[in-house]
């Protein structure tokens, strides 16, 4: 089996890896290497060459994102690195494993990232419920400071970095990077229009990079082992490994590190153990609650950004939610839309007032009160809310993805609700 760097310190009992254990297993070697003689530009080059793409959902090339941070002629002041550990996407629980099992890996990655972009302050913005992870991170930061991996003049390099853990107040929208920044500033967690991008005007109006936990955890390995090695980890076009997860009526729900390009079938069957007896696979959201359904025919596709995109969905966070054939797809989608409606920040009209409207229509359909025109309303809302750019941020288009693909693949189920005036799945139980 190929190498799995991200989870190499994850123990079967999920107990945290402390500093000693982390170092003993080769930890902080990437940092030592960089501090001993790599310039920020060198580090950037390596990360760019590695083809690492963001693991927070959008898959933006990390090196390219970093390269937009102004390095020369910047007006005096701070630059910031923010680790996005908000992880509230429905069905997503991958960052949690990295946070709880190997906090130093993240910290090392953040120091390297901050060094590369010239940031002097770093924040870990962590989901409110991740109390254990927040505690472990605070402890790990204290340990790292003692060893001079953090703080003033890191390892004698002349580079200094302060790192703080900030617990979110608990809204999904805080995971959207610009809303996260607003929230960190103590304001309403409303997303911001781009441009200007955070790379030039982010936290407190200063250059800022926001990266996902998993993205940052890759950095120490890339710096230590080089881009070619990283590229070789992937099975296909995409470099590195990825944490994949499965939830739903499978035998062994969970989260595993596997090479990029692993097929969906391998993940579902080999790792998740296939469907629970008596349940069939109806469809699945490949990358979390805000990605489009894929179905049986897609099972042999490799989990790769382009491939999944071409199939009509998104890699998203790489954590699948499985819809079985005994669960009502209308109710399934309604549940998600209700979540997103509830989590809308309330800034822009289509999302704030459109999502609850869709939830209401889906509720009527599910309860047997639907009309044929309701399907038109849903279709209309898909083009109204579902396109990037129609709304102020990507929450609403994401929210519409499961609905839009459910109408494509499971339209018959919607029709049966309307025709029969009741939910056909209720009798099945």
């Amino acid at each position, binding site marked *: 089996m190929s190498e799995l760097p991200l989870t190499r310190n994850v123990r079967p009992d999920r107990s945290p890896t402390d500093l000693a254990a982390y170092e003993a297993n080769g930890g902080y070697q990437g940092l030592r290497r960089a501090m001993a003689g790599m310039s920020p530009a060198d580090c950037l080059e390596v990360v760019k060459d590695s083809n690492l793409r963001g693991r927070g959902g959008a898959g933006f090339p990390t090196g390219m994102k970093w390269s937009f941070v102004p390095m020369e002629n910047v007006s005096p002041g701070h630059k910031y690195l923010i680790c996005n550990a908000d992880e509230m996407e429905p069905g997503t629980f991958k960052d949690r494993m990295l946070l709880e099992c190997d906090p130093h890996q993240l910290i090392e990655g953040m120091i390297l990232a901050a060094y590369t972009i010239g940031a002097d302050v770093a924040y870990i913005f962590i989901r409110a419920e991740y109390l254990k992870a927040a505690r472990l991170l605070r402890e790990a930061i204290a340990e790292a400071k003692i060893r001079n991996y953090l703080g003033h003049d890191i390892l004698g390099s002349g580079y200094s970095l302060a790192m703080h853990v900030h617990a979110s107040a608990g809204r999904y929208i805080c995971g959207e990077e610009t809303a996260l920044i607003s929230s960190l500033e103590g304001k309403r967690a409303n997303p911001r229009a781009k441009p200007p991008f955070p790379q030039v005007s982010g936290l407190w109006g200063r250059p800022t990079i926001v990266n996902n936990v998993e993205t940052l955890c890759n950095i120490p390995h890339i710096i230590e082992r080089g881009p070619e090695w990283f590229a070789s980890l992937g099975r296909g076009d995409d470099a590195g490994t990825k944490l994949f997860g499965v939830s739903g009526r499978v035998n062994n729900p969970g989260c595993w590190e596997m090479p990029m390009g692993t097929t969906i079938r391998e993940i579902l069957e080999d790792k998740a153990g296939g469907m629970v007896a008596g349940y069939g696979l109806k469809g699945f959201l490949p990358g979390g609650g805000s990605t489009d359904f894929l179905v049986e025919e897609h099972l042999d596709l490799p989990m790769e950004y382009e491939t999944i995109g071409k199939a009509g969905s998104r890699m998203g966070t790489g954590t699948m939610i499985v819809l079985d054939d005994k669960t009502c797809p209308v109710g399934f989608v309604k549940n998600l839309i209700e979540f997103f409606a509830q989590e809308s920040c309330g800034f822009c*009209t289509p999302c704030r007032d459109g999502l609850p409207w869709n939830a209401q229509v889906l509720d009527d359909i599910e309860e047997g009160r639907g009309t044929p025109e309701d399907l038109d309303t849903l279709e209309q809302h898909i083009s109204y809310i579902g396109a990037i750019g129609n709304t102020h941020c990507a929450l609403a288009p994401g929210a519409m993805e499961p609905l839009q693909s459910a109408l494509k693949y499971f339209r018959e189920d919607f029709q049966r609700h309307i025709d029969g005036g009741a939910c056909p799945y209720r009798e099945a139980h």
Partner: protein
Amino acid sequence: MPVIKVDGKDYEVAEGGNLLESCLGLGLDLPYFCWHPAMGSIGACRQCAVVQYQNEEDTRGRIVMACMTPVTDGAIFDLSGERASGFRQTVVESLMVDHPHDCPVCAEGGECHLQDMTVMTGHRDRHYRGTKKTYRNQYLGPLIHHEMNRCITCYRCTRFYRDYAGGTDLAALAAHDHVYFGRHREGTLESPFAGNLVEVCPTGVFTDKSLVHDYTRKWDLQSAPSVCTSCGVGCNTLPGERYGRLKRIHNRYNPAVNGYFLCDRGRFGGTHVNAESRIDFPAQRDSEGRFQALTDEACARALRDRLQGKRLAGIGSPRAGAEANLLLQRLVGAENYASGMADDEHALMQRALAHLVNSTAHNPSLREIESADAVLLLGEDLTHTAARTALALRQAVRNEAHRLAEELRLAPWQDAAIRNLAQDRRSPLHVVCAGSTDLDDIAAGHYRLVAADQARLASDIAAIIRGEARSDGAAARIAADLLAAERPLVLSGPGAGSAALLDGAAAIAEALVAAGKAAMLSFTAAECNSMGQALLCRDSHIALAALASTDAEVLIILENDLLRRLPMASVEALRARIPTWIGIDCLENDTLARCDLVLPAAAFTETEATYINQEGRAQRAFPTHPPAEARRPAWRWLLDLARAAGDRTLSGIGHFDDIGVTLAGEDPLLQGIASAAPDHSFRSRGLKIPRQPHRYSGRTAMRADVSVHEPRQTDDADSALAFSMEGSATTDRPGALLSYVWSPGWNSNQSLHKFQSEIGGALRGEGSGLRLLDSLAVAAATPAPLPEAFSRREQEWLLQARHHLFGSDELSRLGSGIEALTGRAAIYLHPEDASRLGLEAGDGAVIAGAALEVRLDPSQVPGSAGFSTGYPETLALRSGEWVNIDVASDWQRQPELIGSDRGAAS
């Protein structure tokens, strides 16, 4: 200039704008909610969506928000196609999901931007079947009514209240489709600009409380261009009248002055004209001292009896129009005419005028004040003495943000982006005042000094800028900030009562000009025509205190309560000295009570008048409606007085414009006043300009209890406006004659853009008053001696006036709702001084006979005492006097009301 294609047609548009502004400027109707011409874009409502194509080959295009899209050369947009208009329809439909559809009982109805936009998008049928949610409304004080169910969540209110006006107690609360715009708990909105919410909110969430209770639709309001008479800034207003009552005051756009916003004193203070204490008929005191109403004839006779062959003296008024003052001055002779300001204030205004005219620094308009990149404010708690100017300073300190934005090439309308970029980096504002001020929150430095020390500091700053002195204290910091700027502004005023301070301000501005800066110098003025009175009396004038030593037999008092200007003893002495007093005023007061003959004046909403603001800008106000009962404009009474006195020089004056024509002669001041607005002969397309919108209803019904025949409309021979709905109401009529704003499909005040030649810029019909000081010569002021530094005394306290937006001004304090906000007159003490005196907050203290409520304020300079100036209780107190402070016996402490009680009480 870039050329863009909209719906297949090429248009040339202004560089650097956004598509929404450009479309509106081109006359294309594109619906919007969250964008505001003065506040820029945030992209929240998604109402202004259009389709943009990458190039001619692009057939798919994508939806973009016009307000967030810069216009670039060659850009291609589809505004009216099915995709764009369908999207906009759905936006309105989703905004309306929870809307209560209570238009018939909504005070916004008929001028509601939501109604207009709903019609404009073509949305008609409701598809949503769910229930509507219902909010609990809040009590927000006596001025503003709250009805949250009508909210469409456009965020305009909080953007205005917090971002633009610096308020903190109104916020967007909660999230998703429960966002709530209100306060954390019920209570009076704290911002002095809260009233603008009524106009900023595109629906009926925030409405004018007095209008809600005394209701009229916009289309049934008669209105005329007017000028706020509640302070010296001279904001342009649109009072609206029906049934002879002033129903409300709205902002009247003037690009050089108030732009889109008023302060709450101006917006709500005007309803004093509806007060019970209005004088209706001329009256004469009978042998028992009671007033007896006079018929027209009896009045004319009484005037003749009292005036013919008599030696006259006159007291004018800084709150009366220039024309009435001028007539009085001519009638009694300039040497027998007092400006009507208190003597010390008169001297300060003369000094301010001399500095403004003679300074090489620029005397800025309010709009220009917003362009200052460093500000020194000397001796004024500006939010309370010239509130709208304080709002302008809140914009000036954002010039640093705009500078930072330019570096990132962010357009000025990218409001959220610029605020996020700049955060709290501001252009420097230094505030020097006797206590804390309501601009301290944005000040780079604030310095609490009594007036004498303010003047000394100003003098030091000037010396440092001239290079004659050095220091490393406050003066040096302030000087450095002013010198680092390109357009520094020095702003002071008569509020601190110090001549040396005005000299210091002028000296600083002069030194800045010498240092190569495009420096600006501005002074506030207390009342709407204080500057006009300074100008009128620039050559000749008699002090109020000197009137008692003249041989005048008749004293004519124009719109002035002398008890606000002179100590009681002096008023009594004057009364004893001059046998006949004739008073002209609109509301009862203690001066009228001492007059032998009282003439009822038309209020500011009932008369034509020119007011000259602190900048020296002459602006014309027109009567909104004819005065009722026997009330007449003061200028008409004065013509009657002249006739009665046998004065021939004024006999050629028939109507208002004749005053200027007859009396101006070679005087550039009077010529300027006369040309402040188009005269009565002006016609638009050959017609007069209506004061009533074309949908004005009930002309017959309104007085059907009297007669069922439609009455003839009152003729207005004095102006180009008509008390009628007939006439020509084009969008290019002169700004000075903008009686209401309306355009087909645009029933709300958002129709204003149809009247502008550039969004947020000049009016198509031009005309924003006339600046007078640029062309006048006035002798330079002799420097005032620099006062001794302040040192406290053992048993005495130095009085320092504190101005209150609600309360310090004579008439606005009587506006409906405002009475509840003026509070008790108070004395402000440093806590240590108070404890020395054995006083606590809420106790009573007696100062010079007046019992005042004690307030503790750590920002009060120890050894000094602030007092609420302009309150009936404090008229005897003067800034700069030393007084004893005693504990008031039998003082009733104010009971503390909680918000909900107040709500129930209102």
